[in-house]
């Protein structure tokens, strides 16, 4: 039963991972830029939720819409002001650009908050539900629920709104989209904003589960890479599936082998998938 508890905990954490990776996947799928500052943006959102909590005592779940909006605007401005000029440039220049952005974000957080770990105090932090013998942590259930709602909202946006459809058109055929008169630059900015909004929401949810400090950003960037490649870069359901796979594999390998091995297991999974099915589990060939 302990084993089942661990799998379920990994599953729930994995949903939040999935939402975070969804942002990376959307950005790559449309703009074809790998966001090397993804983890840094995630940590930025976590600090946003932390500050809101420290100032007003509000639950990160309640300040989530505000932080998500703030990250959307940040992503929109970043794409509009900076990244748009590099979309046709070689990969290594994009890499350097986003590396610089990532460095500045981490350094700013370090200047503002120092290197110490921060967290939020929740009165329900140790509550749990009992479902048929399986123990569910309340924070994990809430975080996973939030992640599923966030992913569903994004899916609905792409499926049903005009802007969402226009963005999908850009992703399918950029030149065609320009020919029919779509403002591709603006749509790219919206897309990057949405990708940032995903990490905004995921960051708030993640703060329910873990402490935050500036230097964990690289780990989140790597985690997001692993997840989207497992699921298929650019595939939305793939990102969620990848997130859940990594969440479960981390939890299980941390328990069965030893905690320090949990990310090695994820990397091994990534190598295996890349070599056997490079387009990812749910990606198109």
């Amino acid at each position, binding site marked *: 039963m302990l084993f089942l508890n661990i799998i379920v905990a990994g599953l729930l954490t994995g949903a939040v991972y999935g939402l975070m990776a969804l942002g990376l996947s959307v950005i*790559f799928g449309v703009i074809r830029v*790998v966001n090397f500052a993804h983890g840094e943006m995630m940590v930025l959102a976590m600090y946003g939720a932390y500050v809101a909590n420290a100032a007003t005592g509000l639950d990160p779940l309640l300040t989530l819409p505000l932080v998500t909006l703030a990250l959307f605007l940040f992503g929109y401005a970043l794409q509009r002001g900076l990244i748009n000029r*590099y979309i046709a*440039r*070689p*990969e*290594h*220049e994009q*890499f*350097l*650009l986003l*590396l*610089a*952005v*990532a*460095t*500045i974000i*981490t*350094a*700013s*957080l*370090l*200047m*503002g908050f*120092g*290197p110490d770990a921060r967290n939020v105090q929740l009165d329900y932090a140790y509550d749990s539900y009992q479902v048929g013998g399986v123990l569910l942590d309340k924070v994990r259930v809430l975080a996973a629920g939030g992640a599923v709602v966030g992913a569903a909202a994004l899916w609905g946006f792409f499926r049903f709104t005009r802007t969402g459809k226009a963005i999908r058109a850009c992703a399918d055929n950029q030149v065609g989209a320009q020919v029919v008169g779509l403002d591709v630059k603006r749509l790219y900015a919206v897309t990057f904003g949405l990708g940032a909004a995903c990490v905004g929401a995921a960051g708030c949810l993640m703060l329910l589960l873990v402490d935050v400090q*500036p230097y964990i950003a*690289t780990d989140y960037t*790597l985690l997001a*890479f*692993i997840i989207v*490649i497992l699921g298929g*870069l650019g595939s939305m359901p793939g990102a969620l599936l990848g997130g859940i796979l990594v969440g479960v594999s981390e939890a299980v390998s941390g328990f069965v082998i030893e905690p*320090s*091995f949990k*990310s*090695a297991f994820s*990397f*091994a999974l*990534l*190598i295996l998938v*890349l*070599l*056997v099915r*490079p387009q990812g589990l749910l990606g198109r060939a």
Partner: protein
Amino acid sequence: MSGLSPRGAAALGLFLAAMLVLPLFANAYIVSVLVVVLFAAYFGQSWNIMTGFTGQLSLGHALYVGLGAYTAAALFVHWGLLPWVGMIAGMAVAAVAGGLIAALSFRFRVGGVYFALLTIAFSEFTRILFGHFKWVGATEGLFLPVSNLTHDDPLRLRGSPTMFYYLLLAMSLAVLGLSHLLLNRRIGYYWQAIRENEEAAASLGINVFRCKVLAMALSAALTAAGGGFLAFYDNNLYPDTAFAIGRSIEIITAPIIGGLGTLFGPILGAFLLTTLGETMTSLTSGLEIAGLKQWLYGAALLAIVALQPAGLWPWLRRLLRLEERRR
């Protein structure tokens, strides 16, 4: 590849002469900074063969630094093998690892961004593996015995920073010469053809797969030699620093800033970035604000990529007319 103009040749000669006599006038701090510069230049040049010449973005070159460092150090500690022998063994290990990674990736048609992320995955995986590798000290680290020698011993790589400086200078020059030689040989032209257009290169009968694997194996082996050297300079090794993703990023920043795929770009980039880092440290040391140094560093990177995205060397050589016009 255009050659140096007379002005360029004179500038190169002047630069070399300056590098040769600098330690005679400089204090210990300057020499230690120059050693950092030369390490950055050496690693940058080795990486440049894979990414700059052949066009395959590797983001995991810390793997080869770590393999070279650990092989040389472990052979010395456990079996007393001379550092130079250990470095050759390390080069062989890294060449096999790099060739295997490249062969696996390219056989399965993993390219572009996916290849870059795969190189990170292998490097991180190895880092965690070495954290459990008891023979080389696992996470506790591997230490080289430090002896109080009164004279430099280049054979056993025990001695002053100045000795390391001159050896490293020779190694950097050797890689520079090798890069220049390779670029003007058949294989160099093949690599550049693959970089510019892989399909066109294949249609002309170039064995793209073999060329790319060869570039990776060579690049990895050269990187590993530098790694072995680094182990004997630092005298300690930890998996989390030897294979750090931060090191991979450091390795590639200098050549990109300097000018990817150019001969002198990695050297210029190494000088600029190290000087920049040291200047930031001394500027911010009195202020005691954590993060300020990194912030300024990030801002400088942003400024460079915004103003000269193709790197500073192509701009500098136009400005100073250091290279002959293309024939």
